[in-house]
């Protein structure tokens, strides 16, 4: 195979891979954010942004 062919195959594969990966991450992020907004609006619950260490005796409720 030509050198440039190897190079092209490598880069095309990587661009496609990175593109798909980035797209899935970004779209999932946006989808979840809109879902939370809808659920919070329905429940009239405030958005909770706290990042906490989970103590052992804490129920995830």
């Amino acid at each position, binding site marked *: 195979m030509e050198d440039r062919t190897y*190079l092209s195959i490598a880069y095309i594969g990587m661009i496609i891979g990175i*593109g798909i990966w980035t797209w899935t991450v970004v779209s999932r*992020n946006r989808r979840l954010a809109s879902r939370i907004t809808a*659920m*919070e609006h329905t429940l009239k619950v405030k958005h909770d942004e706290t990042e906490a260490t*989970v103590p052992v005796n804490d129920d995830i409720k």
Partner: protein
Amino acid sequence: MRERKGELFLIAGFTGLVTTLFLAFNWVPSVNINAFESPEAQRIFYWHVPAAWAAFISFSVLFAGSAMWLFKRNELGWKLHIAGSEAGLACGLIAVWSGCIWGAAEWGTPWDWQDYRLNSFALLTLLALFLVLGRRSQPDGVESRDTFATFGFYGFVLVPFTYLVTRIWVIRHPGPIIAGDDASSISLEMRLAFYVGVISFTLMVIGHIITSVQITRFEQRINRLQGIIDGE
């Protein structure tokens, strides 16, 4: 804006990667034809090495997150474990894929089973694949988190090992080019293109980690809201 911080990093990184691609194809000079069997295929280097570098960053995040979960039961640690494993998988696959293509062009074979660095790097990527797929197959729980965090924690021992064998064993895979001794030197254009690639992949990984942590936080938030709805 805070929610979009990760996406900004991703976009910046992706832009940088495209720039690196352009520079690699059109700007950097070719290497000496006596130094490489396949001088044109050598241009894969400008993504291959930065991808491996980004993978090491990801595996480090995976290690730190796993340790935080195992020893402190820290939720952020678990989020970092998830982000590190996914980013490590993506960057590791890119590094392995580009390396195989380059190997096929340069060595006539895509793989060398006797090269410890190649194999230990592939094993790290395989570990990341196991962690990503395994975690998705299990319901979230302390048992699952403990099990996967243990693998993420102890699998990290391969990272310094892989780095060391770069210095010790130079068999078929070339030794360090950028940070090596006097025998390793490249031109200014090559160095610039390489650094653009490194910075771009670093931005991509940072962006992915931020976004992934946010995604996990969103998923947990949804679970809590679902619990409220179910309880009504």
